[in-house]
């Protein structure tokens, strides 16, 4: 598959002096022709900045945006305007023209290219059929629901036969049912018209519903990129985990480490043990549970410790703890089961 859109080393910084925000940092993404590609990230991750860089509503400070291998950034304004008819966009707040009917809204991009009125109307009616709202042709946006407005916006975006459709939080203002219907429509458009779709969202469900591949954007950096099922089933990065499991990792995904039970028999207090372990061995252990008492600065009781994943580190830690006075150590075999 050839890439239809390639973002290469995109960087964008807003503001100057102390208030600088690096919205994008060396972003590299290749979107293939015909796919539905998702870009997900928390609020402020730079998602909107990134899509706006694709059609150059925002000009990146550095890097290139290639469309069919041609650098959009090197084009004259006129050439760029022509390309924008091939890379259209829909928005969270629909951005319809309030003073025009649905039909006139869909006609708008056709007027821009000088399509004769009658022909434009005919094409617009066809598009309203495609999005399932032919009966709303003469309604003004104020008379439409959010879901209907987004359908009109989709029809408008399709008027110039685009190859790529950019969707910036296109379903974020819609309820779950309308969201699903809108996503279904985007999927149909992708399948039937062969339009490549790029979806920006902070909602995992949207990605899971219709995207083939996904990129996780974190503080302006692409943290992970790949097939949705791969990235979402086993996120490799901290940013990915935070997004996929906002309430913490489920037990089965916790790293399978060796767990030991340490019994304190009135020797070293346990806090200094954990601290000195970090200082002397450079090893951090997880305290999984503890039932200890300090009596006159002496520790009694037991504690469960998770050793590091790394085997040499685990061995070092074990050796260090075993060498302490008044401590007995035993392995807990089936802790994870």
């Amino acid at each position, binding site marked *: 598959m050839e890439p239809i859109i390639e973002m290469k080393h995109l960087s964008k910084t807003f503001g100057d002096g102390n208030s600088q925000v690096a919205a994008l940092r060396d972003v590299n993404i290749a979107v293939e022709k015909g796919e539905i590609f998702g870009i997900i990230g928390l609020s402020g991750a730079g998602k909107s900045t990134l899509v706006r860089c694709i059609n150059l509503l925002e000009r990146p400070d550095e890097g290139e945006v290639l469309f069919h291998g041609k650098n959009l950034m090197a084009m004259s304004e006129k050439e760029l305007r022509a390309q924008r008819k091939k890379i*259209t*966009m829909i928005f969270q707040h629909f951005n319809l*023209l309030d003073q*025009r009917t649905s039909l006139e809204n869909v006609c708008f991009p056709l007027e*821009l290219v000088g399509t004769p009125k009658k022909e434009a109307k005919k094409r617009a009616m066809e598009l309203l059929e495609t999005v399932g709202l032919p009966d709303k042709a003469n309604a003004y946006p*104020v008379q439409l629901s959010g879901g209907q407005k987004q359908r009109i916006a989709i029809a408008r975006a399709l008027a110039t036969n685009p190859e790529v459709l950019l969707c910036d939080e296109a379903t974020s203002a819609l309820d779950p049912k309308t969201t699903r219907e809108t996503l279904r429509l985007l999927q149909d458009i992708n399948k039937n018209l062969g339009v490549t779709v790029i979806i920006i969202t902070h909602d995992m469900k949207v990605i899971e519903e219709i995207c083939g591949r996904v990129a996780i954007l974190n503080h302006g950096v692409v943290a992970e990129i790949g097939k949705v099922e791969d990235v979402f089933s086993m996120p490799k990065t901290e940013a990915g985990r935070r997004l996929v499991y906002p309430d913490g990792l489920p037990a089965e995904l916790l790293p399978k480490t060796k767990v030991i039970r340490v019994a304190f028999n009135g020797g070293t207090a346990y806090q200094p043990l954990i601290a000195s372990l970090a200082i002397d061995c450079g090893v951090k252990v997880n305290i999984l549970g503890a039932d200890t008492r300090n009596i006159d600065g002496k520790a009694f009781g037991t504690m469960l410790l998770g050793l590091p994943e790394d085997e040499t580190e685990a061995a070092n830690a074990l050796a260090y703890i075993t060498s302490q006075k008044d401590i007995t150590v035993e392995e807990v075999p089936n802790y994870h089961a």
Partner: protein
Amino acid sequence: MLESLTAFFESLGVSKAAEQVEFLLDPSNIPFAIWETLYAPLIATVLAYVIGLPLGILLVTGEEGGIRPLPKGVMSVLNTVINLLRSIPFLILMVMVFPLSRLILGTAIGTTATIVPLTVAAAPYVARLVEASLREMDRGVIEAAQSMGCSTWQIITKVLLPECKPSLINGATNATITILGYGAMAGNIGGGGLGAISLMRGYGRSQTLVLYVAVIILVILVQVIQSIGTALCVKTDKRITKNSKKGE
């Protein structure tokens, strides 16, 4: 008719009633005054829009972050000139543009001559009104237009102006009424109309009856213009649904 009206006003304690009633009933006086009151301000309003509308558009599109930013220097000159003209009181401005009126029209006296100072005073006001209307425009909609490959000119003519039409009509109503008020003041420099009548006769010759009649007609004219403006605005605004229109 003449006698009975005169007697009626005399009974109300109006002095010099006969002379005033005669003036008011003469068909060549009041209707002509109304015509004079309207024509110079209306022509001035149109001319003020010819100058002020493009300036108002420039104020919005040319600013930093606008759809076609202009050099900072150009913008600050434009803003300063507009502020300067707006801060000069109309009576003083009128006297200051005498030479300009003479240059353009050959005279600085008379109703037609007031068109020049009215236009000079109104154009910067109109520019600000237009600017305020266009600023109501949702940035997202402009962005959507840009994402469809709109040129700057297309954004102005197909998005900004049509989408802001109701607000622009409101502004034009305000402008017309304000300029009408300025026009009444122009009675001072030999302009005609209801303003001149109320000043010269009503105030100057203590013809209170004439004064009240002239002022009442002015008030009615303003009301009519305002009603027409509001009706046009509501009719064009598609953001107002049929039901809420009926409810008004």
